[in-house]
C-alpha cells in the first residue's frame, strides 16, 4: 500500500493556504517574507509529487524545476530581506503599514 498523490497535494495545499494567510495578515515584513517562503515550499512539494506520480513523463523535469525554484527562493529572500533592512534604516520600522510613502 503506497501513499496516494492526493495526500501530498492536501499537505501542499494546506501549507500554501497558511502561507497566503501569513502574507495577508501579519504586520511584520519579515513574517510576510516567511509566508512567501512557506508558499514556495508548498509549490515545491507539488512539483516533486507530480513528477513522482507522472505516468507520461520519465525525464527529470519536475526535480529540475524544483531546483530552479530553490534558486528563485534564495534570490527572493536575499533581496527581500535587504529591502526590509533598508526600510528599517530609513523609517525605524518594519511594520508594513508604516511603509506608506507611495500611498496616495
Amino acid at each position, binding site marked *: *500500500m*503506497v*501513499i*496516494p*498523490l*492526493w495526500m*501530498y*497535494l*492536501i*499537505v501542499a*495545499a*494546506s*501549507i500554501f*493556504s*497558511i502561507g*497566503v*494567510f*501569513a*502574507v*495577508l*495578515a*501579519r*504586520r511584520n515584513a*519579515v513574517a510576510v*517574507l*516567511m*509566508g512567501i*517562503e*512557506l508558499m514556495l*515550499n508548498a509549490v515545491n*512539494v507539488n512539483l*516533486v*509529487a507530480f*513528477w*513522482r*506520480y507522472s505516468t507520461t513523463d*520519465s525525464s*527529470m523535469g519536475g*526535480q*529540475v524545476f524544483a*531546483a*530552479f525554484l*530553490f*534558486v528563485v*527562493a*534564495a*534570490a527572493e*529572500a*536575499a*533581496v527581500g*530581506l*535587504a529591502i*526590509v*533592512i*533598508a526600510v*528599517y*534604516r530609513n523609517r525605524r*520600522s518594519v*511594520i*508594513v503599514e508604516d511603509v506608506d510613502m507611495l500611498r496616495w
Partner: protein
Amino acid sequence: MVVQYLAFVIFSAFAIIGAAMVVWSRNLVHSALFLVMSLFGVAGLFILLSAPFLAAIQVLVYIGAIAILIIFAVMLTRSMTAIREPFNAQSWLGAVIGAVLFVALVAGMILPVWGWGSLPTLPQSDVVGTTRDIGIALVSADGYVLPFEVASLLLTAAMVGAIVIARED
C-alpha cells in the same frame, strides 16, 4: 509500507504544524524557528518522494541559509520582534481568503474540473532521481542547460542587488 505511512504522517505534521506556528507565534524568533521545523518536514517529504538531492538542498539552502538569513534580519530589526499586535486589521479577510483558497484547491483535486477525473494513486515505478540524474539533466545540451545559466545570472543579479540595497550610505 506501514513505515512509509508513518513517516509521511510525521513529516506532514512537522510541515503543517510548523507552518501554522510560523503564523501564530507572536515572537518573530519563535516564528523563524518554527519555519525551520516546517522546512525540515518538507525535506522529509522530498525523501519520501524519492528526491534525495532536493532533500539535501532543502536542508543546506533553506535551513542552512535562508532561515539563518531570516534570523539575521530579525536580529537586525530587533525593536520589532515582539510588537503588541502581530496581525493587521484585515486579518479576518486574510483568513477567509486562505480558507477559500484551500477549499478551492481541494475541490480542484477531487472534482474533475480540468478534465482529469481521478488523480494517479501509484507512483511511477520506483525511480529515484539521484544526484547523477539531476546533474546530467541540468548540463546536457538537450536538457536544461540554458535555464541553468539563466539561474546563475539571476543569483548574481540578486547578490549584487541585495548588496546595493542594504549598503550603508
